[in-house]
């Protein structure tokens, strides 16, 4: 529907007028906005509403008492959890494995500066009735499902989501025109900077106008699709019901996200006498008031639900409630000084002086003035930091500093909830999981458990629980034996043996990690994310292998759906990997992950083949460097070369890897003729062997290579090195290739005794891989070169039976004597 400009303006004006009537005031908020909170508190004191209705699931209303408890200290959240036991939402298709009933979890966080909490607190102080009016979480999910949204994976979401605003094209363009970098900066620019000088009514009108345009810009389908329509109808019914029950001189205050506020008055009129439909929730629902943290809140805000940098706005709110005249400037000053102190304490390369702090504050204030803000907003402050504190380029020196600033603005606060709020959900979740796995925790005895991780789905799930608890450092289960997928060891085992025991520390450990999440899975995800961040911060010092190991660990814990960040980290690490050996190792680990289907279920990770390919490409890229590989890494390099062949063989049926790249790079090394380097001959031998056994080098080419490297080079060590490399990748050359033996024979004959002795160790190393039978074969050929067909007597007969027996006894006596002296390890 397109309207002319005048129609537009009149429609907008009508909407705005409907928000502010004597009987009902609709206050549009943005979640976690101090400006909204400040104006809202002012409004409540002025209007003194008898009823305050807040956007939030109806079933949260009984929790208000706990929220207002004096012991409660934000940040806190209401955690709600819904399991679709009746299978209304998700049934696996015939060809899919059943993942069990769909699970949903959501948070409804409060900070001191959240408008919702301010409404509860101030309303309660003035004796207003307070209720939540939104659909219950389970109904929200069902409504969205009915409207067509798909639920094929467990979700953890925020009940303060504001995606409609953040995704609005209109607001995006508006931000661009206003010279703002993003949605948050524009919000601060428009609303968080000079809200104190505006009247409440004009503030409401402006926020509503802002939301009105975002809403005009959002298609009806989108609003329908995620269940917004159903929720708004439910809220409207509750408001209409409240209206009916009040006298004419009483006022209702409705506090909802601005996106809903502008639609509600019309819906309330339409709702008429309809009473709210009774709850239709099915399945099991659980909710609890829990401790929350600013770090969690910041992470949740990553999913478009409210303002970032909680600690920054918390400080701002403190200043506001203290009645400060210039809250923004005071917060900016305090933060800049703290940042300066931090850099001095952390002894950063260029620590900041007081003069820098003054300059940054001046910069922030000038920027604020330039952009028309009464005091520096968050972005003005950050720009001040960028200008004055970063002494170098933003992508080098800037990263460290902006990281510190980001942490500081996020804050570390963790809230408190009163004892009456009950057992933390994570403990309940643990008990449930334990019951499901039929583990006995009635006492603290140690119990053994053997899990068939290949065959049985439920055992796999128990194994994941144990691995997750270990990862969370919750003392409960110990892995006694089982396959080690990280190091590729003991893979033949198909069972995991665990020992578990419940201890009081188990539960206290769970409470400690409760702040990471309300279920074990969620806490594990968040801890994993933290570990990944740490790995990222460690930078280039660590190899790709560490990241791949973490991916395998994540798969052990069944967190396949939460590995996106890890996968991209691996991709970056692989790209940075400087060592051929490490790149091949990472590729091999990824191949292992991809192949061990059941216990790790890595086939659910669609990116693994792409990563494997990337690791392989990186290996091919680094391959030419092997010609100059340091001597002490030669053995590992040879192993890696050999394992690349196996990797190609394993991956070839699916055409995952472009074989040509490897062979081209390998053949390229032979052409570099870098014979001056001590390792080059060995690598040449290995590559010659690879090419020959893959049929990419003819017999005569190999002969040429052999002659060139054995006869053509004077250095005995390099000659033997070539032999070592060749036999490492192509043992059969030793007895099949007449030229090799002939050349070898020639050079050994040419050596004098001291030279022979000096190369003997390397020679042994080169020939050590041959089995006894192969050694015999080679020996026969060598004998043939000297005109003999028989090897002669190979067994030693000069020792008599008696001597042997005597020696055995002597050995035993010596071993016993050593054992008596506690030195038995000498005899081994």
């Amino acid at each position, binding site marked *: 529907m397109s309207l002319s400009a005048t129609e537009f303006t009149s429609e907008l004006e009508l909407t705005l007028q409907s928000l502010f009537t004597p009987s009902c005031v609709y206050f549009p908020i943005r979640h976690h906005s101090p400006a909204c909170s400040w104006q809202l508190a002012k409004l409540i004191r002025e209007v003194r509403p008898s009823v305050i209705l807040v956007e939030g699931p109806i079933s949260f209303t009984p929790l208000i008492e706990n929220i207002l408890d004096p012991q409660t200290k934000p940040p806190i959240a209401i955690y709600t959890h819904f399991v679709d036991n009746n299978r209304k939402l998700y049934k696996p298709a015939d060809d899919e494995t059943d993942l069990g009933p769909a699970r949903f979890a959501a948070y409804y966080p409060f900070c001191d500066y959240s408008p919702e909490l301010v409404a509860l607190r101030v309303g309660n102080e003035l004796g207003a009735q307070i209720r939540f009016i939104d659909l219950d979480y389970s109904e929200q999910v069902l409504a969205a499902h009915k409207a067509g949204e798909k639920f094929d994976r467990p979700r953890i979401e925020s009940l303060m989501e504001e995606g409609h605003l953040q995704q609005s094209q209109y607001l995006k363009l508006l931000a661009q025109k206003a010279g703002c970098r993003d949605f948050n900066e524009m919000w601060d620019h428009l609303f968080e900077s000079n809200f104190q000088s505006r009247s409440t009514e004009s503030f409401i009108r402006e926020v509503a106008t802002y939301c009105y345009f975002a809403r005009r810009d959002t298609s009806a389908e989108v609003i329908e699709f995620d269940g917004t329509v159903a929720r708004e109808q439910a809220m409207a019914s509750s408001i209409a019901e409240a209206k009916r029950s009040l006298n004419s001189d009483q006022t209702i205050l409705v506090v909802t996200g601005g996106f809903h506020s502008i639609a509600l008055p019309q819906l309330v009129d339409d709702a008429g006498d309809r009473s709210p439909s009774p709850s239709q929730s099915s399945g099991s629902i659980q909710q609890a008031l829990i401790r929350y943290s600013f770090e969690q809140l910041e992470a949740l805000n990553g999913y478009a639900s409210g303002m970032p940098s909680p600690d920054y706005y918390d400080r701002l709110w403190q200043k506001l409630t203290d009645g400060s005249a210039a809250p923004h400037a005071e917060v900016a000053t305090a933060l800049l000084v703290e940042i300066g102190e931090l850099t001095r304490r952390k002894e950063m390369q260029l620590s900041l002086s007081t003069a820098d702090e003054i300059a940054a504050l001046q910069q922030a204030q000038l920027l604020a003035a330039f952009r028309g803000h009464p005091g520096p907003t968050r972005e003005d402050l950050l720009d001040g930091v960028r200008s004055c504190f970063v*002494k170098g380029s933003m992508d080098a020196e800037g990263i460290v500093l902006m990281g510190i600033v980001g942490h500081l603005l996020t804050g570390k606060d963790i809230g408190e909830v009163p004892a009456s709020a009950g057992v933390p959900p994570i403990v309940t979740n643990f008990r449930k999981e334990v019951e499901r796995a039929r583990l006995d925790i009635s006492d603290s005895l140690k119990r053994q458990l053997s899990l068939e991780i290949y065959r049985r789905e439920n055992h796999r799930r128990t194994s994941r629980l144990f691995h997750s608890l270990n990862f969370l450092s919750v003392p409960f289960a110990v892995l006694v034996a089982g396959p080690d997928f990280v190091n590729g060891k003991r893979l033949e085992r198909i069972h995991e043996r665990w020992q578990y025991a419940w201890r009081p520390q188990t539960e206290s450990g769970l409470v400690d990690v409760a702040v990471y999440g309300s279920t074990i899975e969620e806490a594990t995800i968040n801890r994993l994310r933290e570990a990944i961040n740490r790995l990222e911060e460690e930078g280039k010092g660590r190899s790709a292998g560490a990241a791949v190991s973490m991916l395998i660990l994540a798969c052990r814990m069944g967190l396949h759906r939460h590995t996106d960040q890890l996968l991209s980290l691996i991709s970056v690490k692989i*790209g940075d990997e400087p060592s051929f050996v490490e790149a091949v190792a990472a590729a091999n680990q990824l191949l292992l992950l991809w192949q061990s289907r059941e216990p790790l279920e890595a086939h659910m990770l669609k990116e693994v083949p792409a990563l494997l390919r990337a690791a392989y490409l990186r290996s091919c890229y680094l391959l*030419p460097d092997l010609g100059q590989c340091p001597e002490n890494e030669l053995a590992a390099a040879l192993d890696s070369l050999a394992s690349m062949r196996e990797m190609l063989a394993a991956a070839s049926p699916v055409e995952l890897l472009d074989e040509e790249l490897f062979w081209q790079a390998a053949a390229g090394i032979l052409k570099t003729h870098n014979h001056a380097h001590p390792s080059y001959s060995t690598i040449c031998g290995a590559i010659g062997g690879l090419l020959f056994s893959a049929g990419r080098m003819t017999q005569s080419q190999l002969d040429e290579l052999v002659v060139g490297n054995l006869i053509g080079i004077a250095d005995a060590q390099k000659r033997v090195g070539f032999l070592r490399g060749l036999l490492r990748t192509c043992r059969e050359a030793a007895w099949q290739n007449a030229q090799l033996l002939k050349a070898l024979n020639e050079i050994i004959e040419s050596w004098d005794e001291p030279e022979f002795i000096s190369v003997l160790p390397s020679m042994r190393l080169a020939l050590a891989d041959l089995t006894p039978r192969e050694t015999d074969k080679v020996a026969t050929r060598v004998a043939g070169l000297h005109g003999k067909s028989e090897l002669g007597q190979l067994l030693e007969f000069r020792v008599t039976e008696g001597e042997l027996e005597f020696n055995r006894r002597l050995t035993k006596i010596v071993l016993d004597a050593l054992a008596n002296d506690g030195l038995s390890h000498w005899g081994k």
Partner: protein
Amino acid sequence: MTVDRIEDRALRPPCEVLFADELEALQATDGGKRPEGWKLSPQAVRTFIVGSDEKTVGKTSITIRRKFYGDDALIDRCIVTLLGNRGLLLVGEPGTAKSMLSELLSAAISGVSTHTIQGTAGTTEDQIKYSWNYAMLLAEGPKPAALVPSPLYTAMKHGLVVRFEEVTRCQPEIQDCLISIMSDKVLNVPELSGSDATLFAERGFNVLATANIRDRGVHEMSSALKRRFNFETVNPIGDRKLEIKLVTEQTETLLREAGVPVACPPDVMEVLVSTFQDLRSGAAVDGTVVERPSTVMSTAEAVAVGFSAGLEAHYFGNGSMDGSHIARQLLGTVLKDNPEDAKKLKQYFDVVVKARAKKSRAWQSYWEARKFLNR
């Protein structure tokens, strides 16, 4: 008197001449408060650089073109820094339009962008501060008339912004002569006496320097001098579409000026810009990691490659540009002096271009031209 107009003679007129009409219009309609010594208000300076969004300025019929593409908040910070006590140091990789931005800022603020010191390894303190007309010095002794002012001296005297290009190419000891000038805003001329011996900077004076921090042949900067500057990083353009648009426009302009009637097909331009963006960021769009070459893959270089590719297509080809022209011209850009870079470019072709060869004709011809990389 014959009218001798600089824009008619100069190969590249300075931007206060090039955009004289825009500056004039802004000055005439500028409603904001002008800081002392500034020709325009900070808001008008911003408009001069980021454009007036196709709107005409005041009652004039002039629209202000956008001259700098990228982060607008960076412009805010630069302007505000120049308002304050500290100098402004623009850092970033070569070819990110640092010098252009510095020219635009000084033209808008002081009305002149030519008070410039070019930093080199051979820059001396005389060139930064002042030197003497030695004939007059010997004949008449030290007096103001014998003094030869540097751009910095003139800028201090008249309250202008002085540009210092490539400040880190100067020796650190030479750079450090800026320290006292920047903190005290005073230049001492001990050879002269009386009031001539100290030059106090007029309001409006500031130092706007540019530097490459990681290039070869640059020097460290002392932390004392670092403290006198606010550092602002100018990043290459990250938006692929925008960069394609810019490169296409600029390449077409260059070709037109050279009288070469070669079109820039969109798919070929995409190949060109994608290559530059991938190699610059070290990752292709699909996330494939590629090795970054040691040379700078700037937008300006992309334009240079596009231009040469057009010339090649015209003079040695059939007049239409395709991927192979880009591939051949790319060599000279990426392969400057580091043989490792050849390996990296080859890897890029093997890993990324090969996969894209099926996508379009331009990528196909690009891939087929890889043989030219083996040299």
